[in-house]
């Protein structure tokens, strides 16, 4: 039984890479998540529903399509990718940062949705009360809106992290399946299944993926509940 959980170095590498990709994806997209969550929760503007639909697209289109679009945009000769490479010498192509970008894009709708809902649940009356006490919009945002939706935001972040860990289609399309660079847990699992006699390793990775995902979902649900309960 102990043997079963002793991961091989390459499997360990995949787990480490998955966590790094997930962490980077969530950290990098968090400020955008807060911004768009707030924008959709608190502002009215023309094209709001179009923006809402656009942000939700990665949830409904095939991940392979997302990966392909990323390849066109951020490939070394892509519209944005070429610019980044020529000016900053930075590229997403075929490295773990690309995997993080793919995961971030795929998980973004879940993050925005959760942040938006938790911000919408903050009583606007409290925000106006804070304004009458001399607080400008920025102070109100950081001292009232964010703290009161904090656990909901956290739930969204954890959810996005969990989704990142499961990302497969966009990643393999955008940055391929390079061991130690872009071979995250799901990709390693897929590779194992492609190999004769790899079922045992695949089963182990399955178990690891299940455990991480399960813990994440429990955490996410816990935060979401706490947010609802605390200030109702």
């Amino acid at each position, binding site marked *: 039984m102990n043997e079963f959980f002793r991961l091989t170095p390459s499997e360990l590498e995949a787990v480490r890479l998955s966590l790094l990709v997930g962490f980077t994806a969530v950290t990098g997209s968090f400020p955008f998540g807060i911004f768009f969550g707030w924008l959709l929760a608190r502002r009215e503007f023309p094209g709001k529903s179009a923006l809402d639909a656009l942000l939700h697209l990665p949830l409904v289109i095939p991940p392979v399509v997302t990966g392909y679009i990323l390849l066109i945009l951020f490939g070394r000769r892509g519209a944005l990718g070429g610019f980044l490479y020529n000016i900053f010498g930075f590229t997403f192509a075929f490295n773990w940062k690309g995997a993080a970008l793919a995961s971030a894009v795929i998980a973004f709708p879940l993050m925005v949705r959760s942040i938006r809902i938790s911000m919408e649940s903050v009583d606007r009356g409290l925000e*106006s009360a804070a304004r*009458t006490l001399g607080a*400008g919009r920025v102070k109100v945002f950081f001292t009232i809106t964010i703290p009161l939706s904090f656990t909901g935001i956290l739930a969204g972040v954890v959810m996005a992290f969990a989704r990142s860990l499961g990302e497969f289609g966009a990643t393999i399309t955008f940055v391929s399946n390079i061991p130690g660079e872009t071979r995250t847990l799901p990709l390693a699992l897929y590779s194992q299944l492609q190999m004769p006699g790899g079922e045992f390793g695949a089963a182990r990775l399955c178990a690891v993926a299940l455990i991480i995902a399960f813990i994440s979902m429990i955490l996410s649900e816990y935060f979401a509940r706490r947010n609802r309960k*605390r200030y109702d």
Partner: protein
Amino acid sequence: MINVNVTKPLGKITVTASFSVADSGITVLFGASGAGKSSVINMIAGLLTPKSGHIVINKKTLFDSSGKINLPPEKRGVGYVFQDSRLFPHLSVRKNMLYGVKKKEKDGGADWEQINSLLGLGGLLDRYPDKLSGGEKQRVAIARALLSQPDILLMDEPMAALDAFRRDELIHYIAKLPALFNIPIIYVTHTMDEILRLADYVGLMSDGALINFGPALRVLNSNDIAEMLPERDFGVICEGRALSGGENELGIVSFGGGHIEVATGNLRAGGRVRFRIPAMDVVLSKTRPTTVGRNVYAGTITEVRERDLLADILINIDSDEESTHLWARITRLSFKETGLAPGDRIYAMVKSVVASSQFYELY
């Protein structure tokens, strides 16, 4: 100094209000729900933007549609106590109170001790809002607003969510505020009780329009308010000064019409009191009555209004001081039988027990 002149279309009604108040008393906006009272103070607070007009508080222009001035709420220096208190649930009472305090004075400034002891908040400072009663929440909300050192305090039905006992307790605190903090208050309510006890000025709102505005007694005795009140409440409202009072002692109050005795203890001798004498509780007699009852006033009938089954009779009480009136309501039938007419001499009687039910000490 408050100078407000605003117009704002809101759904079916258009809210229009124009009034000014020179000193720092309590101005009560009174009217039915949906009459536009809250909209007026929301416009003063900057939470609602008028279509046109101007708002000036203490020479500071908060809004002026012609000069294109529209200060955001945080720049207006306005304290607002909401009906639902709106304490920040994630902050302790102390942090709630300090939220509006300017950075320089983290300890709450010079007013901290005074506000704290006036509102009796000492034991609550480390609690969180969800552990407070309704009355405590409102006291914290008042303290929080005052500590932000506003130029004006707006209160939107602050007692609507409280039971009768808590109201009674809170109203004492509120009544003391103008004198202690030299701050004008605009107070929104649809409860007669609160007006009688608090108002220096009264504005009546109906269907969005401010239909009458002025010193409390004048507006409270106007025909406009008579139409807004339940039948039972129709009557005259007077102010006087307590001559005596105390435990187990009849209160005696002098007012324009002479003296009135009330069966209430606990009046402070020398204190200002305001009271209502409901028209239904005034008994009339053509001759000086010899029945039991000590509040008897001689006067002249000046006006009679007949409608349906009732006749409302306005009596001008003989008095050396300013003219004082009483309304008496009798049935039209008995009015016809007595043959009374304007100009006739009459005696009016008020039972002490009746008068005491709506007797309020002012501060």
